[in-house]
């Protein structure tokens, strides 16, 4: 308030109009504005860092306690997002002149600058006097006195949050409530998905592509999607079971017939000099090799002696017998046998007859290959299913699907009756009922869902079954050795070779084929709900236990 002595060039001279723009250009205020901006960046950055650290610590803590596998990603994402967003917000917020004026006032200017701005805006009579006073005060201003670093409490809080994050990351923590079970479920489902994906890959890699294998691969891809959406082992198990049913529905009797025919042919022709190459190609299920070997056999047929041609005719006839399950193939083989064995038949006729077999045999090889691959997938799914069911648990949710039952597991010889769709059973050794279980299988529910035996068996795990009669090796090479009745050890007698016996003609059916057929039939029964729900799980577990080892090809 001293008498004005500032030069006229000074925009804050008492007789000069006060101008906010001129005030904004004051060097001291510009320097202070830069420091204010920098302080804002640091303050918001530290706040963002604090928010990021706290959020990451919370996410890590909750994620670890809840057993959520995605917590590291979420924690890292939040830890980066919060400071970045805060810095971006701070970059966009440049301090305006009013804020700079207030900061200047805070450095001992006693609200002179901000009051000057206000007085100029409202055209106050004392505006010019205020401006002159502010100008004199600004000459004393030292922008360096304005602290750029945010207040220490922010940094202290950031340090505390860092320590909290470290604790949340490193401290051993128990899992909350069902989190452990959920984590185990998630792990089991993830393992099941990996297995399903491996099975799908093995199907899609099969060459040449076969429709049945492709359909099976598509089914496995769909199952993989369902497993991805599954939130519990029970859901995953149900999805696997349903997929097994659909996969089993893909298998047709024709496919089995073709495979039996090809195996019979391979066995029947194995000792034939002219057709041994074809037999090897059939055993290998290689369509190209089949065509090549048949072409080679046809080419050599013209040079055969009459006796050799007769033996070739017999071999073809034996093949027709072995391929009797495929009438068209058997008919073709018989015609070829007749053409080759005809007295007046020429070499061209024999060659043509052999060559005509190539397309159908190649197609059959493809179908057999597809069948084998689908059965491998089914077998693999059985193992996936068994892996999803923890030891000691009962059968999954196919048992007792829907409704409740008035009865509990019935054992012994007394008839039991139950009501509701949960199932019913009657008669000796058959019991059913128990409450329908849609949730995760448990030992307790197993007792109620198993039937036809003692409830005790259900708690011994999926492999605890009574010994059954088995005519051959069960479960593949690793299965138990069981002697079939009638093959008495040490028996003596005359051994008679029967060239036309079914065994010699290739009528022996491989185990996986028998298994597949029976399992398919069982699944069709399950689909038709011919069995009480309480028994359906037992059937599943039975076939899973009997599933052959997938052959490595």
């Amino acid at each position, binding site marked *: 308030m001293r008498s004005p002595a500032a030069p006229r060039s000074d925009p804050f001279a008492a007789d000069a109009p006060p101008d906010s723009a001129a005030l904004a250009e004051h060097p001291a205020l510009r320097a202070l504005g830069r420091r204010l901006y920098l302080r804002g960046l640091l303050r918001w950055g530290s706040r963002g860092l604090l928010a990021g650290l706290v959020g990451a610590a919370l996410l890590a803590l909750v994620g670890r306690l809840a057993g959520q596998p995605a917590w590291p990603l979420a924690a890292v994402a939040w830890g980066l997002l919060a400071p970045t967003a805060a810095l971006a917000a701070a970059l966009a917020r440049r301090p305006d002149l009013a804020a700079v004026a207030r900061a200047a006032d805070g450095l001992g200017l006693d609200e*002179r600058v901000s009051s000057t701005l206000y007085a100029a805006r409202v055209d106050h009579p004392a505006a010019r*006097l205020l401006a002159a006073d502010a100008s004199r005060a600004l000459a004393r201003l030292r922008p360096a006195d304005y602290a750029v670093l945010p207040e220490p409490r922010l940094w202290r809080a950031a340090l505390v949050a860092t320590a909290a994050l470290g604790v949340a990351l490193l401290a051993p923590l128990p899992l909350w409530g069902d989190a452990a079970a959920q984590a185990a479920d998630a792990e089991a489902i993830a393992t099941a998905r990996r297995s399903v994906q491996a099975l799908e890959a093995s199907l899609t890699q099969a060459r040449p592509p076969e429709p049945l294998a492709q359909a099976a691969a598509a089914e496995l891809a769909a199952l993989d999607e369902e497993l991805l959406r599954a939130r519990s082992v029970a859901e995953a198990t149900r999805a696997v079971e349903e997929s097994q049913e659909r996969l089993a529905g893909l298998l047709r009797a024709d496919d089995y017939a073709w495979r039996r025919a090809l195996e019979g042919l391979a066995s029947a022709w194995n000792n034939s000099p002219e057709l041994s190459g074809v037999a090897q190609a059939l055993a290998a299920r290689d369509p190209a090799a089949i065509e090549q070997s048949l072409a080679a056999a046809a080419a050599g047929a013209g040079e055969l002696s009459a006796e050799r041609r007769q033996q070739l005719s017999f071999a073809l006839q034996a093949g027709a017998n072995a391929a009797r399950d495929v009438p068209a193939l058997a008919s073709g083989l018989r015609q070829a046998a007749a053409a080759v064995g005809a007295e007046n038949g020429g070499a061209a006729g024999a060659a043509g007859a052999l060559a005509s077999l190539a397309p159908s045999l190649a197609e059959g090889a493809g179908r057999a290959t597809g069948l084998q691959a689908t059965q491998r997938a089914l077998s693999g799914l059985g193992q996936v299913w068994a892996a999803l069911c923890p030891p000691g648990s009962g059968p999954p949710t196919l048992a007792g699907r829907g409704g409740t039952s008035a009865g509990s597991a019935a054992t012994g010889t007394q008839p039991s009756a139950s009501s509701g769709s949960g199932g019913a059973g009657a008669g000796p050794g058959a019991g059913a009922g128990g409450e329908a279980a849609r949730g995760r299988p448990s030992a307790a529910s197993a007792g109620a869902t198993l039937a036809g035996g003692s409830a005790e068996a259900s708690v011994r795990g999926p492999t605890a079954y009574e010994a059954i009669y088995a005519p051959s090796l069960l479960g593949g090479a690793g299965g138990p050795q069981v002697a079939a009745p009638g093959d008495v050890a040490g028996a003596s007698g005359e051994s008679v070779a029967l060239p036309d016996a079914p065994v010699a003609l290739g009528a022996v059916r491989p185990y996986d084929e028998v298994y597949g057929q029976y399992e398919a039939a069982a699944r069709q029964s399950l689909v038709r709900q011919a069995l009480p729900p309480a028994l359906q799980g037992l059937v599943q577990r039975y076939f899973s236990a009997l599933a052959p080892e997938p052959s490595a090809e």
Partner: protein
Amino acid sequence: MAADPAGPAAPPLALEAEADAVRVRLAAVEGALREVVVGQAAVVEQVLAALLAGGHVLLEGVPGLGKTLLVRTLGQVAGLDFGRVQFTPDLMPGDVTGSEMFDRESGGLRFAPGPIFTNLLLADEINRATPRTQSALLEAMQERTVTAGGQTHRLPDPFFVLATQNPLEMEGTYPLPEAQLDRFLFKVLVPYPTDAELAAIGERTTGAGLASPPRVLERAELAAGIALVRHVVVAPHVLDYAVRLVGATHPDRSPLPEVRRFVRYGASPRGLQALLLGAKVAAVRAGRWNVAFADLDRVALPALRHRLILQFEATAEGITADYLVGRLLEALRRE
């Protein structure tokens, strides 16, 4: 200093000159007062601030601290007419404001002005008068008029009431009603002098002659200074702080738990006016044309302490209005 105060259209340089003159005169008045009144710097400063703000002052202190001396000296040095009324229980309103008397010459009633018709009225021990007499001051303090016999008489300009009261003797006193307390711009506490000041008082008042301060301020100059104070700028954020400060004295609006607990009624809008006017005077005296947060803090106690009506619980626990205002000044952000 010009007789006519600087109006809104006054050029800046004239305003600056007015301000310089006011500051010089105020310093002179203060110096003259200090020649007579020993110590009591804060009291003198606050009384002069109230004088420039055009408000009344309630001085509270034990007897013998120089309250009357201060007021009388102020009237002397400021060139103001001085009147003193010793308030007693038998004092009637007419004894203060004046009354209509029979005029023998005209044969009619004539208004005889009371001692209130002066520039500077010392209402000594105001709490000893009855509420009826105290209320007679209400109209005079707020409207600066006196009504008697159906006629309104304007009081001299300027008109200041400087009332005193003794906080110790409660026997036979009538505490001032809230409405009247609110009309005082400041309530100034007169503290007991320090030993050095006491010694100076003893030396100065028992000597051969008493100092007689000169008149250093004209009435018109005082009026100009009062007008000049109104030109001081209050920026919105400073005004907001003052509003928050006053609002925070109310228990239903205060962020301070102690206020919510101990205060029955907070400061009225007159409290905000007192706060701003006092801060403007402080700004002028500091050589500024704007009110700073520090100015508001400086006058908050005298402007607000008598406007807080405390609960009985506060009295029981020894909580004073000064303490609460101080806590508010600590708690509120200046932004």
